[in-house]
């Protein structure tokens, strides 16, 4: 596997391989000397057109733990009218010797284009493109579910019921998670106000709901809350942030409805008091910091898979 631009690039076996590899990388991260020589001599560029401190440092640390050289390139959003084109930037980075480009871009499809249009030869890893996909986030979420429910020896995630809640319309995390969780045999339900629910996700195998409480009554094993940007209010998606929080925040009565042995996830950064209450974020069932830890292991596994010559 050379590129990872979409969960669709992965077979089920490859996805499981990455999760297993992430488990071993996790063991490395627990050692005193947290470094492997695997990618020594390789150059990895983090090409970030959007601010994303956590994803960027996670990829940066993952590359460093594998002994690769890392360059961080924070680019202003390019367009044909202003500044350098994506094609020129990518070709420039490749001319400097980049073996892999980890790209975060506000426009959907940008990572896919870099991988397919013949502009560059480097491996392309999608660190989030527009509202399309964020495949390493989905992988780290699957890794977290697997650990939390001790499914390391199971073939996949079948039997798991995952509820994803929030701004689905603008969320690349929701799309990648839906694709990967279905691939791994989990049941996925998506709950959102109808204005933030894009049409047709049922065709990808999701059960759809416009009522958070009803979804919680179905006793999901995993409640995954998504960030909702307050700016969305300008697009008339909901009347006010207070009204959104009243109906859609994981708090109070709804937090009490989460099963004892279920887990709570959030990709971060959180809007505490908006889509998630502090009580939920700091609850013993919360796996939010595990997600961050697993992000590092999963990204090490992905870089290893895309850049080492042999298969895992």
């Amino acid at each position, binding site marked *: 596997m050379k590129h990872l631009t979409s969960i669709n690039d992965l077979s089920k076996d490859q996805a499981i391989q990455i999760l297993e590899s992430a488990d071993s990388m996790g063991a490395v991260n627990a050692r005193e000397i947290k470094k492997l020589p695997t990618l020594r001599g390789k150059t990895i560029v983090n090409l970030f057109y959007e601010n994303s401190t956590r994803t960027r440092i996670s990829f940066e640390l993952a590359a460093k733990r594998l002994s690769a050289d890392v360059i961080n390139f924070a680019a202003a959003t*390019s*367009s044909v009218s202003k500044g350098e084109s*994506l094609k020129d930037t990518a070709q420039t980075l490749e001319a400097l010797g980049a073996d892999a480009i980890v790209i975060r*871009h506000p426009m*959907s499809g940008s990572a896919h284009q870099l991988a397919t249009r013949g502009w560059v030869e480097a491996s392309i890893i999608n660190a989030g*493109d*527009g509202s399309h*996909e964020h495949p390493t986030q989905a992988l780290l979420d699957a890794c977290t579910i697997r650990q939390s429910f001790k499914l390391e020896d199971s073939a996949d995630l079948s039997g798991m019921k995952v509820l994803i809640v929030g701004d689905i319309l603008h969320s690349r995390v929701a799309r990648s998670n839906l694709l990967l969780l279905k691939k791994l045999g989990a049941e996925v339900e998506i709950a959102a106000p109808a204005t933030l629910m894009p049409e*047709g996700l049922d*065709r990808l195998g999701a059960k759809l709901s416009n009522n958070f409480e009803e979804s919680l009554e179905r006793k999901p094993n995993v409640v995954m809350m998504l960030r909702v940007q307050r700016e969305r209010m300008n697009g008339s998606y909901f009347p006010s942030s207070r009204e959104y929080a009243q109906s859609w925040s994981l708090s109070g009565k709804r937090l009490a409805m989460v099963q004892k042995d279920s887990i709570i996830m959030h990709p971060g950064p959180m809007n505490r008091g908006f889509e998630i209450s502090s009580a939920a974020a700091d609850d013993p069932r919360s796996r939010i910091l595990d997600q961050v830890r697993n992000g590092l292991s999963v990204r090490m596994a992905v870089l290893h898979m895309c850049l080492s010559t042999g298969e895992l």
Partner: protein
Amino acid sequence: MKQVLRNLKLSNGSGADIAIENGLVVEIGKISGSDGLDCAGLVAFPGFVDLHTHLREPGFEGSETVLTGSQSGVAGGYTALLAMANTDPVADNAGTVEQVLDLGRKANYLQVQPIGAVTKGLEGKELAALGSMNRSRANVTVFSDDGHCVYDPLVMRRALEYVKGFGGVIAQHCQDPRLTEGSQMNEGALSSELGLVGWSSVAEESIIARDALLAEKVGGRLHICHLTTAGAVDVVRWAKKRGIKITAEVTPHHLLLTEDLVRSYDPVYKVNPPLRTSEDTEALRQGLLDGTIDVLATDHAPHSIEKKDCEWDNAAFGMVGLETAASVLYKVLIEVGGSDLSHFERVISSTPAKIAGLDNQGHISVGSEANLALFDPSSSRTISSHTHSKSTNNPFSGVTLPGSVVHTLYKGEFKIRDQKLQVLDV
């Protein structure tokens, strides 16, 4: 000098020779002698007429000029192009439409008939100089803000009323701008999956319905540009049944291509209105077959490479289409749809000529200008991205299509002969 084209087939199925002298057709039928050009196997159509071409000049000569667009046009069998008004400066005044007219005459490949803007600067606020464009040498009768919808219902009503005085028609780009803010592709399950902002079919259909009712109210003539959805076909069918003066066009790409191509994120497939679903394509074909849709129009929209060699959201909307239109129509209307050559002729030549009021186009008759497209329906060809257009944003590149234009004559002169562009002394 008299010139005879022999052994042609006409769209009514009969065989005929055509004699041309001084740019005019002088005889049709069995002509004695054996001199002239043997055209056995070719169908003689009146030169094609495109109601919707972006020639980009003045202002965007890097993408196309009136000359290169004209050359691409004759290569596709066209002898008249209606040049859209979204140039820079905008064709919203007599001076600019006369400039475009003159550039067309100077190029001298085919008839370039300027379309005038409906509103000043295509801004949708104040009416452009409709009357003075009509009275100018360009004699403009078709007005369009294409690229933008005339969204203000009062402005649209006034435009429909005002052009009645000189037999004008308003060609509307039907797109509710509020419902399509930031839109990138057809709205549906696929746009959800690809994470691209959707362009919903209701944004097209609601404007068609509104404008049809306005046209009915004021008795004006309305032409619908590039219809793309099944619902839009229904609305136009309903409007025609009510007796509203409405005509509609469909593009070759919306007849043949569907949104699935967007999966590649290749901006060559980015167009406005967007490629739709196969159900829409099927409804458009049906609408064309039953006469709800009157004409094929290319919406030929050339763009330079850098406008397409970039992120999907940053890429320009539009596709070239002059040199593939007839082949797409032949495939859809005749090969798949089972219709006949006379229907083909109406859709690509005679009806658009009537809508645009071009009396010298759209028919082959003794005493009229010899504007001819001689078409070989038996051949097939694989399309190259490079055409006579200055731009290469060709979505049919690599596709195999039936039929080819072998000769194009404009005012009796070969502009394309044996599929070769004739270089003119200008």
